């Protein structure tokens, strides 16, 4: 078996996108998935591409990614179902409005001009279904919605087109680091050899790290979504309400997607999620409180997916500080879909020793070494993202 430049363990978007850009630079890459590409978080998320109120640390990534989303046809030969919807967060009272004003000022100062404040009338116009007491809000027009399944399909196809190889139903069961790279033991392809190995195993990233003798604070988490029957057009943007756990949007086909980081039960033995109706009921209650048309809304289905979560809800990107040549891209904590194309570019550059377009400061795994005991007992509060980034 010939050695490849890089093996990506995990055929989610982090693996597919990173591998794609590396393959386009002429490198030999292999993507392995124990199930199939896009089976988990990347293929089954809510498809939200949001810069609005994203954590400050992630802004360079999301803005890079947004530019790519708007140009997907050129990048992977499919628009990935992306279309511009805009994102909007409504304020229920003056206090909430002030918080949004502060946020807008903060991003403007950092040089991002996409977050605009809107008044009551504009809010009514854009999202007439938000209950009347809301006083205004904040909006980012560039944000949008993509089809996770189509995105995974397109990235997979583009990767194969660029000479990359994907092995589905190929579980990694052991990894031996050696002098000249890694030997990766798999269930269906025997031993595979690579210069570098990337851990992009999503919900299984912690488990995988452990297999190689590293430790990562990435825990599996199940997130769920409610989907309704088609409805006449009620709104265009994704809508949230400041301080409340809820995202609401109407897909192009007229169905509403209702979510907000409501958890599903996780069964890691079988690698699946089960709907938790106490969570979904909480979700429905918030929607019922905030939107005026809820009596007409029919829930047709629900779904859930598995992602990997870190204690501070920021991803982990960078080389392992214990196993040389091992690279981690994981822990996207329920909001990585939107970032994935940009993460792919950055990771591909780093793996080739090039300078990436944006840095990874703040995302390295070392941050947990420093604060590991603190994190265990007391998760870091999440100031900047205004408690929304971990909903999505």
């Amino acid at each position, binding site marked *: 078996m010939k050695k490849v430049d890089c093996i990506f363990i995990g055929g989610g978007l982090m693996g597919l996108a990173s591998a794609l850009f590396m393959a386009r630079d002429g490198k030999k890459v292999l993507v392995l998935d124990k199930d199939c590409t896009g089976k988990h978080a990347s293929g089954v998320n809510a498809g939200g591409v949001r810069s609005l109120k994203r954590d400050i640390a992630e802004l360079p990534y999301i803005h890079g990614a947004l530019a790519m989303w708007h140009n997907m046809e050129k990048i992977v030969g499919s628009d990935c179902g992306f279309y511009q919807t805009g994102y909007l967060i409504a304020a229920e009272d003056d206090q909430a409005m002030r918080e949004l004003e502060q946020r807008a000022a903060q991003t403007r100062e950092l040089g991002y001009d996409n977050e605009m404040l809107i008044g009551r009338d504009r809010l009514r116009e854009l999202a007439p279904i938000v209950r009347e007491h809301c006083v205004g809000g904040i909006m980012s027009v560039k944000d949008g919605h993509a089809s996770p399944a189509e995105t995974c399909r397109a990235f997979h196809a583009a990767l194969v087109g660029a000479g990359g190889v994907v092995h589905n139903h190929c579980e990694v069961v052991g990894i031996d680091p050696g002098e000249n790279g890694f030997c990766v033991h798999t269930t269906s392809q025997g031993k595979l050899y690579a210069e570098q190995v990337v851990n992009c195993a999503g919900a299984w990233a912690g488990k995988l790290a452990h297999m190689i003798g590293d430790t990562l604070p990435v825990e599996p988490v199940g997130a769920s979504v409610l989907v309704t*029957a*088609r*409805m*006449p*057009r009620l709104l265009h943007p994704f809508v949230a309400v400041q301080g409340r756990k809820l995202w609401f949007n109407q897909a*192009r*086909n*007229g169905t509403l997607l209702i979510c907000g980081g409501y958890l599903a039960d996780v069964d890691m033995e079988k690698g699946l999620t089960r709907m938790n109706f106490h969570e979904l009921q909480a979700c429905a209650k918030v929607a019922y409180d905030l939107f005026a048309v809820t*009596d*007409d809304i*029919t829930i047709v289905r629900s779904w859930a997916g598995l992602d990997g979560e870190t204690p501070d809800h920021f991803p982990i990107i960078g080389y392992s500080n214990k196993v040389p040549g091992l690279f981690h891209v994981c822990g996207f904590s329920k909001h990585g879909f939107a970032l994935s194309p940009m993460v792919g570019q950055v990771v591909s550059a780093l793996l080739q020793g090039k300078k990436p377009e944006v840095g990874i400061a703040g995302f390295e795994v070392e941050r947990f070494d420093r604060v590991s005991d603190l994190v265990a007992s007391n998760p870091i509060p999440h100031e900047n993202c205004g408690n929304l980034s971990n909903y999505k």
Partner: protein
Amino acid sequence: MFIPVDQFEDRNVTITIDKQEFQVPEGISVAAAILGHGGHADCRCSFVHGEKRAPFCFIGVCHECLVEIDGKPNQQACLVLVRDGMHIVKQQVKEG
């Protein structure tokens, strides 16, 4: 279109279908009211292409019989009984 096998004597329930009033027998389903007494051959339009659709399975599985009942959309006409004063609207939700 469907035809009653009997002359129903007791048409004592008043409903409307698309705003038109009908007297129908008690205890029948909304699907029966639409197809057998309301003179309609269909009950909704399809979501994507807006084609006319009618009940297909009559046992609650196909969801082709979705109508709006008293303002509530997506009700299965084959599983709901008529009630005096009920307003039934053939559902016209289309994509977009």
